[in-house]
């Protein structure tokens, strides 16, 4: 099943418009919601893995992007080798590189410094920065401070916020 991002109505995979509210479901089609069992999630990441050629939406020069699963919005990551993910509050001294505040980060249980993405020679890694509610890759919970390799199409979950990794082929 897939879930309508607007009204949470459930439809069969492949449905193009929500029968309850008429919302176009193309984005939701990419993310079947089948409970939170680990097998299902890694299957989901596999089944929804976008092709490399199908990622033209990243900004020029960006090698890596994060797609917000519920809204389909794409965040391009440009110009660094590592990015901290988290949420900012007013007066905070250290602001994360990727501020998820506008995706209702607080309600989703995202810590101020939640996780870090590292671009290394041999691939991209995610590290949980001892967040309160944890970091999951394709449904697998990461141990704090231990880098975990991630790939194009993987589902990265911070608290309850789900992001899909979009990678651009180098060159």
């Amino acid at each position, binding site marked *: 099943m897939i879930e309508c991002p607007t009204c949470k109505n459930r439809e069969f*995979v492949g449905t*193009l*418009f929500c029968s*309850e509210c008429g919302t176009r479901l193309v984005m939701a089609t990419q993310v079947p919601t*089948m409970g939170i069992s680990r097998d299902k999630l890694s299957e989901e990441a*596999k089944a929804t893995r976008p092709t490399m050629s199908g990622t033209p939406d990243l900004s020029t020069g960006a090698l890596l992007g994060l797609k917000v699963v519920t809204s389909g919005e794409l965040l391009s990551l440009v110009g660094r080798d590592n990015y901290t993910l988290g949420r900012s509050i007013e007066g905070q001294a250290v602001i994360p590189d990727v501020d998820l505040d506008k995706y209702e980060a607080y309600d989703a249980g995202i810590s101020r410094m939640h996780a870090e993405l590292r671009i290394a020679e041999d691939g991209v890694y995610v590290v949980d920065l001892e967040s309160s509610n944890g970091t999951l890759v394709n449904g697998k919970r990461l141990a704090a401070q231990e880098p975990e390799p991630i790939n194009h199409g993987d589902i990265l979950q911070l608290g309850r916020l789900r992001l899909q990794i979009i990678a651009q082929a180098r060159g």
Partner: protein
Amino acid sequence: MPPEKDYYTLLGVPRNATPEQLRRAYREAAQRLHPDKNVALGETELFLEIGQAYETLIDPASRETYDAQLSEFEAELSAESPFHVNVLHSRSALLRIDEPQVHYTLLEIRPAQDLPEIRPAVNLGIVIDRSTSMRGARMDQVRSAVLAILRDLQPTDSASVVAFDDRAEVIVSHDQARDVSTARARLSLLQAGGGTEIAQGLTLGLDELHRSYVKEGVNHLVLLTDGRTYGDEELCLELADQASNAGISINGVGIGSEWSDRLLDDLAARTGGNVIFLNTPKAVTDLLNRIYDDLAQIVAAQMRVDGGFSQYVDLRTAFRLVPEPMPLGDSLPMSLGNLPKDGFIRLLLELVIHPLLGLEEVTIANLNVSGTLLGKAAGDRQLPVPIKMDLTDDLDGKPPPEPISQALNLLSLYKLQEKARHEAELGQVAQAARRLESLATQLLAAGEKDLAKAALNEAVQLTHARRLSMEGEKTLKYGTRALLLSPPSEL
């Protein structure tokens, strides 16, 4: 003897299926459809049919006989078919997953390029509601519209006019229609008064059409009404089925807001016709002229789709998009109406596909498009349309083709309207009002200001009167349906 069913499609296996594949398909059907389980209506019959298919194909000798019959039958059908069908899918492949999935298929039916130029003879029957409510401007407009048609009647064509209230009367018979002054005099006798019994009018109107029936031409009935018929709905639908079987299509024209749109829709759909809503009688002249002109452009009448779906597939809904948008229900066969010379018929199928595991490809349907070719080469023709899909573990992420997403987008508005109306009738007023508001937002986004306003008005009306207005119901229904008339994108 032609085989009754395509057993391969029914089982959902390729033509060269191995015994192992046959056994697997049969096992899956058994698990889903076995009568020991609680199954939906008709599923036991389906299961028995699948059993028959399996028995036939698993035995090498009977399979050989069956294959020979099937290929002979299909070769006969596709040879020189005057029809051409394009098939478009929402996705290039089905997902190999352990849950049901939705798949959309668009069929476009065109006449073959090399068909001879013809102008078919048109046999037109006009059936007019003359109940009391038609009195005044409505009747005047209808009278002059009909007279205009009779005046311009081509020598090859014929027409007749029947009027009804609680009984029916031939106003202008097909012999009198040739003589304009007689027709004019007879039409001036047409006065409004009495009730509305549509079945009376249909019966006599169809009788008149049969008197001047043209075998190689178009036989068509236009029903003009502004009222609701009581108690004879069943009979009306029976008459529509009879008309359809006799090769007569029916157009419904509803004037004002009091007529029964559901009955007219059902009646017209059974014959492949359509329904037009006129909120003012002024447009009736243009409308009749257009119907008459369109009828002269037809190459084949009584287009139909039958055949069968694989056991893995349920047809959820079917909708004709072109030439006239019309819901077609959820079962085969479907009447599609007339095929225009320079145009096409497009229909969109919404299919639910049950879990498909361990298969490489599947024939989801083996449809059969048929119709009656008009003119010299007149006769019934067919074209088999097998629909095969590959299976994959990975989506390619490609968006659905534009004609499909465009049509579904507009259809989703139509369906929202249907849902809101259904809820309003169940008394779920708040829910229906919310839905209408969301419909209004989407209509506004689509640039349909008037319809959006109508939807908002109905939302307000609902909260006050706890029901929709009859006019609003029809404005929204036929308004959202007419959105599909916007020029369709090329396949």
